[in-house]
């Protein structure tokens, strides 16, 4: 079944707006309507669901109909009729195409805190889109059913950039979030959407593992407003064994973001036995402090058994509390705990006077004591984009 914008918006209005207007978390309700997350029982198609095919950016001709993709550090060398590692870019007669432009498999409004962004337009909604595919394969992926699928396995919407922007505005979203899977693999779609969003007065927020080459990243930074990076570990071995990637390009990405002026936050998922040694967590906090400065929000998130890591226990909340304290002792001003609802580590405290300035419970703001981005108690400026 093809789902065009009209059907999509009809569904969205029916399922989602009530939630938006009343402030109810509609992620679950709308997911039933809008997430087509690679359920293999659902009809799938490789033609019906790949509506648009667009020439890719950032690749080079290697001759003999082979191409080298330059979008991410994997730099796949791809023969004719084959796809890159991410499964969403295909070589057809020596021309490289993206198969996910305008073909999101998920599209619905989310609180911006869910991304999580804690210092970027708090309390607003982000129209959140994803396509199939990823350039990593993290063994703990929460969205593996779509991230590790090819676009013909997911049920997709026909939503070119202009329709995404219009739908986001119709639904009172203040930003568009590129999320759930890895937006690097739908780069062209994200870039065009962010350009159109900016013209329409919407912001763009990228939720990424940061596994992207510098040139496309720099171009992206000119067009988006916020980036959240999942730093998976500070050990290359973890990247190799658990994510099928490399650490260094992610560190390079963080330094480029530091210099770009784009707002960015970091999430570190604490996975028991794999990246949770005291030394590694300390090294991570120190690296952030020394290379990026004290004001970058760093979220330590709780792991739950998932995908290929189903035999590990969830992270002990005490571990997260201890880690947060350790990182703050190193000098980081904004250290958070994720996936532990109601924990004090979900809220923001003024680094000078220590007062609670934003109280959060899960994805929702319960109290906001910032005045023009400053602590209402002592006047200290709190880093972030608040309006």
């Amino acid at each position, binding site marked *: 079944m093809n789902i065009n914008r009209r059907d999509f918006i009809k569904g969205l209005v029916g399922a989602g707006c009530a939630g938006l207007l009343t402030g109810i978390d509609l992620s679950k309700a709308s997911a039933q309507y809008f997430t087509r997350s690679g*359920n*293999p*029982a*659902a*009809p*799938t*198609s*490789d*033609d*019906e669901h790949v509506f648009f095919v667009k020439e890719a950016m950032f690749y080079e001709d290697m001759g*003999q*109909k*082979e191409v080298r993709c330059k979008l991410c*550090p*994997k*730099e*796949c*060398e*791809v*023969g*004719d*009729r*084959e*796809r*890159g*590692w*991410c*499964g969403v870019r295909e070589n057809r*007669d020596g021309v490289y195409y993206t198969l996910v432009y305008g073909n999101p498999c998920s599209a619905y409004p989310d609180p911006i805190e869910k991304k999580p962004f804690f210092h970027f337009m708090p309390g607003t909604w982000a129209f959140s889109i994803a396509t199939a595919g990823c350039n990593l*394969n993290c*063994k703990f992926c929460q969205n*593996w059913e779509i991230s*590790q*699928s*090819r676009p*013909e*396995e997911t049920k997709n919407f026909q939503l070119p950039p202009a329709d995404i922007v219009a739908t986001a505005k119709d639904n009172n979203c203040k930003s568009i979030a590129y999320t759930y899977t890895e937006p690097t693999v739908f780069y062209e779609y994200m870039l065009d959407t962010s350009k159109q969003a900016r013209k329409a007065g919407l912001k763009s927020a990228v939720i990424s593992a940061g596994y992207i080459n510098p040139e496309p990243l720099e171009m992206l930074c000119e067009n988006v407003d916020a980036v959240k990076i999942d730093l998976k570990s500070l050990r290359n071995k973890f990247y*190799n*064994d*658990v994510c099928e990637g*490399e650490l260094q390009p992610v560190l390079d990405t963080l330094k480029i973001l530091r210099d770009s002026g784009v707002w960015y936050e970091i999430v570190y998922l604490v996975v028991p*036995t*794999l990246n949770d040694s005291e030394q590694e967590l300390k090294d991570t906090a120190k690296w952030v402090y020394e290379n990026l400065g004290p004001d970058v929000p760093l979220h330590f998130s709780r792991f739950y*058994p998932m*995908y*290929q*890591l*189903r*035999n*590990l226990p969830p992270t002990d909340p005490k571990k997260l509390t201890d880690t947060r304290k350790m990182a703050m002792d190193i000098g980081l001003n904004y250290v958070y705990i994720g996936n532990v609802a109601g924990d004090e580590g979900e809220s923001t405290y003024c680094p000078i006077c220590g007062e609670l300035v934003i109280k959060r419970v899960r994805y929702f703001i319960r109290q906001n004591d910032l005045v023009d981005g400053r602590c209402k108690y002592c006047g200290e400026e709190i880093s972030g984009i608040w309006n």
Partner: protein
Amino acid sequence: MKFDENRRDFLKKSIGAGLSLYGITQFSLPILGTAEAKSTKPSVVIARDEKVIDKRFQIDPAVVRKMLDDSVIKLTGTKKAVDAWRELFRSDDIVGIKVNTLSGRRMSSSLEIVYAIVEGLKSAGVKEKNIIIWDKSDRDLESAGFQLNRKANNDPRCYGTIPPIGYEKDIKMLGSIASRLSRIVSHCTAFVNVPVLKHHTMAGVTLSLKNWFGAINNPNKYHFDTSVEKKMVAGCNYIPDVNSLLFSSSGLDKKQPLIVCDALMAQYDMGPGYNPRRTWIYGGLMVARDPVALDRIGLEIIENKRREAGFDSLMGTDIQPDYISIAADNFHDLGIDKRDDIKLINAGNLEPELL
């Protein structure tokens, strides 16, 4: 290219440890069941005939049928074709004919060969409605000239995994491989694997082992190795892992009695896409039960043609198909790759033209 030792060690450790570090559900590895018992040499039968395909690529179905019947007789050591087919298949089998249709009409499994296989299966008593001709997608099948048939009528069925059959919901894992299998795989009780003899710019050659990439949802993950400057370069040393995953998690070892490699027209460079300047008429079929042995011999035929055409050997290049010998190692144990241990049988009227 050398196999990535670290990854291989990792894979071994993951399996060996029972409860692996990464929580991978352990499958037991296959016991060799695809070919003849280990003590006997696996046979690869080659049948070539100059009349089977002409210069305009017209294929004679009657000649194909005879070549195939002669080959299965030699393979099984029986006297009559019907006995050979009966030895290979039971009448109540649901047989999946896994064709290779990525490359359009010219370089995909030939309709005439598939037709001859269907006739052979019927002679063993397999009902037509229990024969499924399949590949990854409807689109590929149609572009290779197959007519789709989903009805349970008296014709063989023909359809791709997508749409609408799809993949198993559960992910199957073995070492570092994690994939979902086509639901067609679990539906069938036996298979005929019908690869095409051709070069592959990422794997070196694509033959019977590589053809199973069409049975998983994420072949793109396994086309690359990272061993050169950490870049994703061609080299398909995951192929044996994918085969092991299929074998161990689906009982495929018992389900794969026959491989019929289409070598009527073959391609020695710039595959798997069709390239008319790199194809030649070989006019043959390769028939075996051991995928490793068949791939070893197929590689030799392609190497021989490359030498004849003035091309470099694949050996020593980044795409040297090491995966064939890896498939034969003690860990994967998918078949025999040592040339001296393979029994080559000529069932045609031309020499096989090996290296």
